[in-house]
């Protein structure tokens, strides 16, 4: 079937994350449909999970296609509704007559973790972790996990965080995950973001820990407690698929300097309302617990 005629909106993809790239080019995507539309994100449901079309300021991820902005308009003007079908034709992603995205010239993007970077325990510098903590103090959002633990001293979160020490048993870890998933307001609840951050430290560590499997199992058991979008974020985390800024921060803490950690933390914490701060808090706890272990 060839689609002819012009589209109301059309644009080019600038970069494709490795998963997006792989599946688009091998035409392995059937049953693509719109899940949700935001100002600068279009989420697509597919056989392999949630994929997203984003504009450059959102950043990059293995499951993202970064596209050029639509002039002065945003995605909300395109007129796409949930369940709208989407097909891949040649080098184009087509949404009926509304939108056409040409990904022919798009470059593949891989973040540092995507390329296989692992941080090593023996190279982890305490000063980098301290720098992350300082950044959280200075730039962490008011209502984010970090502030709630260290300033407001909220019991529920503190308990959950304490349970996540790396040496704990499966049942304790599971109960912590249980209480965190779905906790808090927002598209991606505070608890989910925190877990994402924590898990990112664990999955990207060269040395394997039992806790990784405990957390992953527990996530799958509790997915029903959160929403589709956040759930997909958690599923991606279990597969070591993380947003660019998370990857950059892991790399900064694992291998760079306190200054770089500060910069990478700031960038991450600008995401969303509290999402960035919550993820950063999870990363911090992850590294603290790692240090504690050894």
């Amino acid at each position: 079937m060839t689609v002819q005629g012009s589209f109301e909106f059309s644009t080019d993809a600038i970069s494709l994350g490795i998963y997006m790239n792989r599946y688009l080019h091998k035409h392995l995507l059937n049953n693509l449909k719109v899940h949700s539309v935001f100002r600068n994100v279009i989420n697509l449901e597919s056989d392999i999970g949630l994929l997203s079309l984003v504009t450059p300021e959102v950043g990059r991820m293995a499951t993202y296609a970064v596209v050029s902005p639509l002039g002065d308009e945003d995605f909300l003007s395109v007129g796409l509704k949930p369940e709208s079908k989407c097909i891949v034709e040649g080098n184009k992603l087509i949404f009926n007559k509304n939108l056409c995205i040409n990904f022919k010239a798009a470059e593949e993007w891989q973040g540092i973790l995507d390329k296989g970077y692992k941080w090593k325990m023996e190279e982890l510098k305490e000063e980098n972790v301290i720098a992350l903590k300082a950044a959280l103090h200075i730039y962490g959002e008011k209502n984010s996990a970090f502030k709630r633990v260290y300033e407001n001293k909220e019991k529920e979160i503190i308990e959950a965080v304490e349970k996540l020490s790396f040496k704990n048993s499966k049942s304790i870890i599971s109960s912590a995950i249980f209480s965190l998933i779905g906790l808090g307001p927002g598209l991606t609840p505070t608890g989910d973001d925190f877990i994402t951050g924590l898990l990112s430290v664990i999955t990207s560590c060269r040395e394997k820990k039992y806790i990784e499997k405990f957390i992953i199992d527990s996530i799958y058991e509790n997915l029903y407690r959160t929403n589709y979008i956040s759930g997909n974020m958690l599923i991606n985390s279990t597969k070591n698929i993380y947003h660019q800024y998370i990857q950059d921060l892991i790399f900064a803490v694992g291998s760079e300097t306190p200054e770089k950690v500060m910069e990478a933390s700031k960038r991450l914490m600008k995401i969303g309302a509290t999402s960035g701060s919550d993820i950063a808090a999870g990363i911090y706890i992850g590294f603290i617990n790692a240090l504690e272990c050894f």
Partner: protein
Amino acid sequence: MVSKTIVKSNAYFDSVTLMKISAQISKLKGVEEVLVGMGTELNKESLKNIGLMSKGCEAANPNDLIIGLKVQDEDTLNMALKNIDELLTNKSKRKEFKGKSYERIEEVVREQEGYNMAVISVPGVYAAREAKIALNNDMHVFLFSDNVSVEEEIELKDLANSKGLLMMGPDCGTAIINGIPLGFANRIRRGNIGIVGASGTGLQQVTTLIHSFGAGISQVIGTGGRDLSLKVGGRTMLSALQALKEDENTEVVVIISKPPSEKVAKKILKAASNLNKKVVLCLLDSEKKEGLGENIIQCSNLEETAIKAATLSLNKEVKLKASEEAYSIIKEFETMRKPQQKYVRGVYGGGTLCDEAISVFRNRGITIYSNITLEKKEVLKNIKLSRKNTFLDMGDDYFTKGKPHPMIEPSLRNNRIIQEALDPETAVILLDVVLGHGSHEDPAGIAAEAAALANISLMKEGRKVLWIAALIGTDEDPQNYGEQKEKLKSAGFIVLQSNVEAAKLAASLVEI
């Protein structure tokens, strides 16, 4: 390493916008050098210095945009270029608001009514001309630009006087007219104190303290840095004093300035005596003058000026609020203090505040060194290396050539702050954090970053440093004073409202 230079013809952007873009791009991973600027001689020189000059750039004129990059690899280059492009189009897109766009003052005057204030910050070589056009069209002028000649300044001020218009500047950074902040200024409660001053941060310190005491301002008029020089003769100050005299909402008048020449001082003092209102006179760095009019109270620093003015305004005594955390922080510091930690390092963004801190130290007989002192024996031989008690004005030309002022881009003084903190002889770091219109959106965050990073290194060496910040702002400023204060405290700062107070505290920790 990959280098690239691009010249775009006839694409004009204002210099501050471009410097902010440069600053943003320089923070990207893998970017070693970046310059985004118009083809001025200054920028071309900077380009040469970082090894990015090209033939196209040699030929560039001030209407051409130059982009120079030195980055790690091709990927970073492409990303940086894309980012720059986006930022530039965003800047020009934002200009396309609803309604007509204008390029000239004359166009606005032709088609619109009621525009009565021209805020001018174009490069100095064009500034006087634009100010003249504004005055000729019956507009008052706030002239932020510097590098305007004395002759041009006199011509403008005479023209303004002949037409009964306010000519603030050149080199005027702060004013608050009818409660509206112009340039770098804070949100201050309205009240009955009228202020005329030649120094931007000086006005900011006084107005914010006045606000904290519960008093308010009627008008705050900036005269520009050179108004009280012999040639210019205080033209704007004199007109401003007359206007405050005739302002029924002004009951207390404050005059703030560096010491003027004798002749000019006489004129100002005479005008002050004839105001028929109470006058609080602050001539920074000056001896007490004899034979002042009865209505004149002379103060020696900004803090004292604000206290006296607020007291007169409210008809009751006012006092600075003490810092709750100071005592415990100092105690903790003293227990850990090493014998060689003997000195204070002031790393300032505001020149007047730096000066004021220096005065405090001088008055206590403590020897200081600085990059802005006029005393030969106090001059820092190597500006890159501080000596003993040193006070640096990071807004001075030496530091800001081709870069934004630290008030706009505070991260530019962070390296120096960290350098000073890590010096084994340093006991105290003293700095100003200025909020308000025109300032960075999170100056406390940036300062706290510097302290946090310095503290990490200090911790490794088993040392601590005492951090003192003068946080200049009000609870109505866009940056949220309370949150800014918390950020500083979380990094270990003692936070004070008054620069003098901060300097005195610092001095008390190092005097023998």
